[in-house]
């Protein structure tokens, strides 16, 4: 009887590529079990999240347009602007052919308040079906058409511009509604003006393409939210992975190169976050990039300006910057991350995961489980009360997903026990397929978390910062502007420490962090290294405190701005 096809294929490849020594070696891969072995999941989880980011990123790239030029309606060529509905409008299609005033399949628009049906005249009730509604206060992107006769523009900050039809004789393009419906809608929308400057906002092609993804594309909002939340989760996972490896001295011989490639990967992941943030071309994107590039420019003597110029593609952040950041985000950084992740994982396969020095192969991390459960529960309850028990808030979804995992896995180990040797030592777990299956479960939970977040809390930038940016207009920095949470520690550090010194300290700190394996002599020789454990704890505490302080400073900005506006 012939052997199964998979086995024959393996033998065919092996005869030509000699993969069996490596494969046989890998079959013996094991993961040690001890009090702190729960942290071993985070490396694989980071890999999974990276793959998810690549898949969602490629999909988004099919719809995203990386251009900062003001967007125009492709059919009419008119510039697009932002408008807000000041009344609710319902658009219906007539389904009855016997009506006097209307023909079958006519599309008609009416305003309403309360239920959409209340806006319909009696003769259309039950004889039409609702095509769509435009609820009051919803924001839309519309072509800005103005006819000289019927422009009505008051000098107040909120002004109404009535859109007219084109000059008679030219074809009029109506993309989404018939001319009659368009006229009704245009009567009930207000052109949105920038809250800070009062200018009409002409969003960029990039911004409009993102809004198209969020509103028009099937599962667009879902995919974008997966990518945005996924990015944050990836950074959190990478940080947890790095700090847990540090505390367990996973950088000691023979894993020094693992550590160094890991630090490079951290820089690359931060690079992804920084470059990706600019792409929606909102105010937040723009100013975050301005600050991020501005620091090297101001405080790195000599070549600082040069580096900043290359990053920006000019003296200021502009459309050039968007193009460069896009290229970095979708080509340069992905190639780099793939290269270094491959090296990182290949190196790991050679030596496997080692036991941290001085940690016995017994015990469960009771303290971690309790602390984890209590803090997650507290976040869920506390944040829920402050958001009026909004169960769709990420502050609720995240703890409520992780909490059962923490409690469940802990209870599972208590009740079912873990395999022990005759001397009571926890046995290592074979990677294939025992630990791999556990990895898979963690990945499923992570995916579930992201899907829940994307479904119940689509990604949104609140307030002024989420407005599109138009670099042809004067710019006003939004109050309380700040980078994403994982950059906040640096944000605060740069606020507390004067510029040039801060740059030197950051560079020095990064260099020291990179060569930690060679500084920790005790770990190099396989001995316990409590000093470096305390150093690690101090660094983590520093990171958390700086982050917390920076959010307090942002709150202060808001308070100060509110106070000064009251004094006027």
């Amino acid at each position, binding site marked *: 009887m012939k052997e199964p096809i998979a086995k024959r294929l393996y033998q065919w490849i092996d005869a030509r590529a000699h993969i069996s020594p490596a494969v046989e070696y890998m079959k013996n891969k094991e993961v040690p079990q001890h009090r702190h072995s729960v942290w071993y999941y985070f490396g694989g989880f980071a890999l999974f999240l990276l793959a998810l980011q690549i898949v969602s990123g490629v999909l988004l790239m099919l719809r995203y347009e990386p251009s900062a030029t003001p967007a125009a309606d492709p*059919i009419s060529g008119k510039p697009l602007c932002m408008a807000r509905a000041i009344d609710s409008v319902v658009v219906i299609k007539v389904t009855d052919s016997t009506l006097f005033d209307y023909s079958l399949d006519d599309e008609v628009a009416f305003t309403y308040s309360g239920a959409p049906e209340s806006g319909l005249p009696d003769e259309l009730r039950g004889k039409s079906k609702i095509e769509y509604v435009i609820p009051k206060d919803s924001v839309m992107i519309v072509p800005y058409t103005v006819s000289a006769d019927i422009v009505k523009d008051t000098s107040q900050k909120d002004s109404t511009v009535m859109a007219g039809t084109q000059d008679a*004789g030219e*074809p*009029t393009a109506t993309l*989404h509604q*018939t001319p009659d419906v368009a006229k009704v809608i245009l009567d009930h929308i207000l052109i949105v003006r920038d809250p800070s400057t009062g200018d009409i906002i002409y969003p960029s092609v990039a911004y409009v393409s993102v809004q198209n993804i969020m509103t028009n*594309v099937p599962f667009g909002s879902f995919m974008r939210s997966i990518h945005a939340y996924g990015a944050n989760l990836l950074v959190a996972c990478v940080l947890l992975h790095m700090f847990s490896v540090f505390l367990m001295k996973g950088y000691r011989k023979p894993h020094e190169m693992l550590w160094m490639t890991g630090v490079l990967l951290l820089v690359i992941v931060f690079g992804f976050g920084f470059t990706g943030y600019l792409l929606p071309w909102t105010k937040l994107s723009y100013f975050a990039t301005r600050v991020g590039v501005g620091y090297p420019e101001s405080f790195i003597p000599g070549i600082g300006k040069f580096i900043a110029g290359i990053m920006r593609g000019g003296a200021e952040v502009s459309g050039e910057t968007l193009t460069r950041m896009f290229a970095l985000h979708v080509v340069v950084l992905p190639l780099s991350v793939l290269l270094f992740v491959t090296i990182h994982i290949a190196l790991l396969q050679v030596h496997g995961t080692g036991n941290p020095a001085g940690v016995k192969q017994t015990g469960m991390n009771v303290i971690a489980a309790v602390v984890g459960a209590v803090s997650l529960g507290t976040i869920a309850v506390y944040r829920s009360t402050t958001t009026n028990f909004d169960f769709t808030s990420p502050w609720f979804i995240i703890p409520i997903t992780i909490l059962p995992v923490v409690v469940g896995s802990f209870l599972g180990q208590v009740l079912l026990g873990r395999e022990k040797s005759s001397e009571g030592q926890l*046995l290592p777990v*074979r990677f294939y397929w025992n630990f791999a299956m556990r990895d898979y479960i963690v990945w*499923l939970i992570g995916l579930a978390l992201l899907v829940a977040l994307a479904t119940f809390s689509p990604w949104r930038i609140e307030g002024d910062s989420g407005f599109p940016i138009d670099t042809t207009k004067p710019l006003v920095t939004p109050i309380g502007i700040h980078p994403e949470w994982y950059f906040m520690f640096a944000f605060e550090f740069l606020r507390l420490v004067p510029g040039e010194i801060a740059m030197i300290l950051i560079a020095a700190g990064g260099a020291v962090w990179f060569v930690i394996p060679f500084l920790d002599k005790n770990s190099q020789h396989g001995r316990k290294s409590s000093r470096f454990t305390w150093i690690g704890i101090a660094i983590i505490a520093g990171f958390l405190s700086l982050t917390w302080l920076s959010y307090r400073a942002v709150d202060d900005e808001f308070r100060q701005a509110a106070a000064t506006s009251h004094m006027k």
Partner: protein
Amino acid sequence: MPDIFISSSRRRILKILFGGSLAVIAVPTAYVLTNFILPLSGKIISMIAGNAHDLNATSSIREIKIGMKDVLVMRADDGKYSAIDLKCSHAGCTVHWIPDQHIFRCPCHGGEYDTNGSVIKGPPPRPLSHLQVTIGNNGDIIVTDLPAAVA
């Protein structure tokens, strides 16, 4: 190195759970991916190509763009309007209207069509498509991006 052996029945259950969970995830994922990637179907576009009075007087031909399509609106001698999609059925080039010979000619491979869009000669496999034309109450010539039967 101590080995941990799982009983074959437990292994089977684990395999089923693994495969099953992959299937449960794969199906909605494929659905999401497919819907995301597929081109968006836009709303049906209607355009006003002018007014019957203009077309009577000046010329009986007008070329318009409706959505992404190049369309020729023609008024025949008997007064009927037709809107012909100028996309050659051979490889998709936009055909030229040759007024002197009253034919459409495709510059890419030499295909020729008559005023109705039927193939006279050359490689095109099918006639040119027609779009729906209706005349509004005030004489507006309304072209809709929907297929119309050839009279």
